[in-house]
């Protein structure tokens, strides 16, 4: 990492290690995860279920219940301040003001019995001390900005009166209310139909462009990430296996897992009679083996991959891979 890149980093995660204490031992959910997000940038965090992407996102905001979760090491620097070392009261101010989060299911963040508008503006009243009427005016503006028709009247609606896509918009409005500098979006469109997904992604991109906000977009769908992100980080079994500019990583993947993900996705632009799945299953995180976590499923694996430890190394400017033999990935 060059010092110039560091200067612009809004979020910098260093060697983050998260474990879960479960019956029969510890499960390492993330191991030595390091990355950064610059101002105004969108980082796409891709991985399959169990790769640790959601745990990572929640850990950044300290939303993981402990026990069972335990942060074993590393730092989360937001604007130079280590969030992991902050007192809870300060952290609570940061959540919802400087850093906001959007979850997959909008009802995770909404109460079914409160008017939607009041929920969208709750942060403004608590963190910014707005009066009820001022919050309402601002809330109607926010609902209008996220494309809710007839916003002034819909302000008093309850969640059951809105469709899933509209509720996800409301949650985005709630996240945007206090003008966050970083938005963590965890699978924000996974539960939505493709046409609605497109609307939500457009909305996020538009809000981001207007506010200069940085965003971490977590998704299992490499296509969603390809179309929305400046940079991509691919996660596998709790580690980052490849990072770099989106066009670089997808155009010239340098980790066999990234390549495998792309080859196993059915395409809209070409017809293959057979897909090329990644053989086998992800490893058991309760029993980490030495060497590369992908070795058992890798078609390029050599002896060294079984015992040599792997870490992200630059393969091109800004593009890093955790493969020992990145040049053999084709």
């Amino acid at each position, binding site marked *: 990492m060059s010092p110039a890149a560091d200067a612009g980093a809004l979020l910098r995660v260093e060697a983050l290690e998260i474990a879960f204490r479960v019956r029969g031992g510890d499960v390492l959910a993330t191991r030595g995860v390091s990355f950064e997000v610059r101002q105004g940038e969108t980082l796409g965090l891709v991985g399959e279920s169990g790769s640790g992407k959601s745990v990572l996102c929640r850990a950044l905001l300290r939303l993981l219940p402990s026990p069972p979760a335990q942060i074993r090491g590393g730092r989360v620097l937001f604007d130079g301040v280590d969030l992991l070392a902050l007192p809870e009261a300060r952290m609570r101010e940061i959540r919802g003001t400087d850093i906001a989060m959007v979850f997959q299911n909008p009802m995770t963040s909404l109460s079914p019995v409160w008017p939607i508008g009041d929920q969208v503006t709750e942060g403004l009243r608590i963190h910014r001390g707005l009066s009820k009427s001022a919050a309402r005016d601002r809330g109607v503006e926010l609902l209008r900005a996220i494309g809710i*028709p007839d916003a002034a009247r819909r302000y008093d609606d309850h969640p059951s009166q809105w469709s899933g896509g509209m509720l996800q918009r409301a949650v985005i409005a709630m996240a945007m209310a206090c003008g966050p500098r970083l938005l963590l979006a965890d699978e924000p469109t996974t539960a939505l139909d493709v046409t609605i997904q497109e609307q939500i992604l457009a909305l996020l991109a538009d809000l981001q462009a207007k506010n200069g906000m940085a965003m971490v977009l977590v998704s299992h769908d490499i296509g969603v990430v390809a179309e929305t992100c400046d940079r991509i980080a691919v996660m596998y079994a709790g580690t980052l296996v490849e990072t770099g500019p989106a066009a670089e990583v997808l155009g010239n993947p340098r980790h066999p897992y990234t390549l495998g993900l792309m080859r196993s996705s059915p395409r809209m632009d070409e017809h293959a009679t057979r897909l090329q799945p990644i053989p086998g299953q992800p490893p058991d995180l309760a029993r980490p083996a030495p060497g590369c976590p992908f070795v058992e499923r890798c078609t390029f694996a050599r002896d060294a991959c079984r015992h040599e430890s792997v870490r992200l190394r630059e393969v091109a400017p800004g593009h890093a891979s955790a493969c020992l033999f990145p040049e053999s990935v084709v």
Partner: protein
Amino acid sequence: MTVAAAPLLTVRDVHVRFAKPRGLVDLLLRRPASAVRAVEGANLALLPGETLGLVGESGSGKTTLGRAILGIHRVAEGDILYRGRAMGDPMPDWQQRLRREVQMVFQDPYSSLNPRMTIAQTLAEVLRFHRVVPTDGVDDEVKRLLDVVGLPQTMATRYPRAMSGGQRQRVGLARALAVRPSLLVLDEPVAALDVSIQAQILNLLADLREALGLSMLFVAHDLSVVRHVSDRVAVMYRGRLVEQGTRDEIFTAPAHPYTRMLLTAVPQLVARKRARVVQPATEMTEATAGGCPFAPRCPQAVDRCRAEAPAEVRLSPTHIAACHFAGG
């Protein structure tokens, strides 16, 4: 196609309705029960050995239509024929035969497997009940089925909870295949799986289809998956089939504006931060009675679309679209 083969499955002007639950107030005011029209006037045919993809967004009625074909939902109007005979014909031997010839695979195999039975027990039960093989051949048949779906023999003694999602979906397939069906109705069979595992199951389906000559009705919301597996595709919107055609017709020359909207919304695997137009939220607006169901969302809608339901326009022997502007 020169000589059209007799269809295995024919869906003719099928309507499925669900009664809306009536509240106490409705009862007291003696309001009449109203119905949700989940499927309206569906027409489909499935040829032997063919895979038909049925796509649509949530609430389009695709699952309901799939379930109506299996007899899970009652058909309010219209006919569903299997090998030319009404599926609803109550003759016991016909119903018994249908249960063997038509099988279903669900999205979440976990909810359709008995948690207290091992995989071998689950498969053996099906084999015994339908007397697929003689009693002393059941164990061997279980082994063969595990092989067919690519599960190691060690899985036979496992319980569903000790398996991954992909493995459970293989069990779901093995159980459906146990009775040697001719037609599989698959409802979102890969929607819950990670992409690397999804590819394994899609390849397995292609192999099975090849080896066993199965016909499949593949219900899914994911267009890239449907494009991959289907010979023909039918698109549903709000309970109506709005377009049908061969895979190439639907994906390279879509004629209905809804199909086009769906296709452009699918994220592609190419890094291109696209400039998107921010649109207002899509509300669950009801279409005007008698008009086109898609008119409220259609970028091309004119007054005629809101007043008059479009008839099906035949664009080729295999391509039909229900739009006033299709083909014109």
